[in-house]
């Protein structure tokens, strides 16, 4: 077994094999620990601000203006990217693309590692990706890359991400941005 990457390129790329489960309500999952939401938010912000080519991957639930909450989240995610000095690469739909994706400008859940490799992304946030595809993508990223993954999820979170915060809606996202601004100031970034 290789010894690189957050999951050490495990042949079992499923976090549940290591006994990891999604965090309980009001809590977050940070690597293998259940922590307070704020602690995880602070750590996600720190990693994003200190890693090479930090990128946010917004999914269809926030890319498209299909309801008011999605519109609010879009504004917040744009602000989040500015605060975290992060690039944005959209995961605009889940259809497999032939012959191949343009890894420079898009990410596809069926082979998300291509985008991460191509852009040398060392930290990323998945937000607005439907849970079933986030699960697929996060497992692939976990096993194939050394990218630190964070999942900001509106439902119960994703154990396959290195850090996951759950029940995240516009209010919680605004809180994350506030914390990220504090961390940014602390780091002098």
């Amino acid at each position: 077994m290789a010894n690189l990457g957050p999951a050490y390129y495990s042949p079992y790329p499923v976090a549940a094999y290591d006994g990891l489960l999604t965090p309980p309500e009001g809590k977050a999952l940070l690597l293998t620990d259940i922590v307070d939401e704020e602690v995880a938010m602070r750590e996600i912000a720190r990693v994003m601000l200190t890693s090479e080519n930090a990128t946010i991957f917004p999914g269809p639930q926030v890319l498209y203006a299909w309801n008011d909450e999605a519109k609010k989240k879009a504004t917040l995610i744009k602000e989040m990217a500015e605060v975290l000095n992060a690039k944005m690469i959209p995961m605009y739909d889940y259809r497999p693309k032939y012959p191949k994706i343009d890894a420079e400008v898009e990410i596809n859940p069926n082979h998300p590692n291509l985008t991460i490799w191509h852009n040398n992304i060392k930290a990323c946030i998945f937000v607005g990706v439907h849970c079933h595809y986030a699960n697929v993508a996060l497992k692939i990223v976990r096993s194939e890359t050394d990218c630190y993954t964070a999942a900001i999820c509106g439902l119960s979170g994703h154990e396959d991400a290195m850090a996951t915060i759950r029940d995240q809606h516009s209010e919680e996202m605004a809180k994350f941005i506030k914390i990220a601004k504090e961390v940014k100031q602390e780091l002098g970034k």
Partner: protein
Amino acid sequence: MSVDIYKINPEFRDIMPQEIIDLEDNATWAGESVEKRGINDLTDKKEILEEHSLCAGCPEAAALRYILAALPTPEETIIVNSTGCTSLMFPHIALHTVHSLFGNQNAVASGIKRVLEWRFPDKVKDVVVLAGDGATVDIGLDYTLQSFFRQEKITTICFDNEVYANTGGQESGSTPKGQVFKMAPKGKAFDKVPMWELAVTSGCQYSVKLTASAPKKVAKVLREAVLIARELGPTYIHLYTPCILEIGLAANEGLWEMKEQDKDRFADFKFVTPEAEAYLKECKKKGLL
């Protein structure tokens, strides 16, 4: 589903690829367009299916384009498909599609239609089954007929290529008698199952057999079938889309083959119940056809 799911949040417009911006700006969503959608849109509008992973020159790909261009309200349509060559295209369609287990498509579609009627009582949601001859005539015959018996308000389209094509060429119930394939070396021993006739005796309001040689005809039949299914009951379209590889034709010979069969096995067959006939006249008056 509604057209809103294709409206890009302005914050992200600069990072979205052109093809998705085109889908929002230039696709023929019924909810937005003043004029009726149709085959003519294929020339200058953004298509709902552009890329596909079928063989070069496959008539199925063309037929699916005609069908998608003719759906009355694609944003309110759910397509249910099954295992087979057609299932290779569905991941590429910008509409809601549900892939069911081999043969289960009409049972799944019946459930979806019933739930949609309950969940969205004020909206018209169309459920269209699109499966190959293996799924419709062989493996899923039971479910297909049951959905007709039960008068489920769904449209069933059978893409008949008369063979199990993507598994190497085994005969199906829809293969004509005597036909030899790579994996049917002795030739088919019995006649082609007349599914379009079974549809009639099983209670379909509308049953049509045709080839995909004439795009406008396919579009007209599809539109009629969907409109009737909304109001009256099950409708069935049996569409010949030959597997050019399995019958030894070149990529550019699919259309020729369909035109040949227009005069032979797929000569026009059309059944419409008197109620459906009257309803179609009404639709015509309203400008829906």
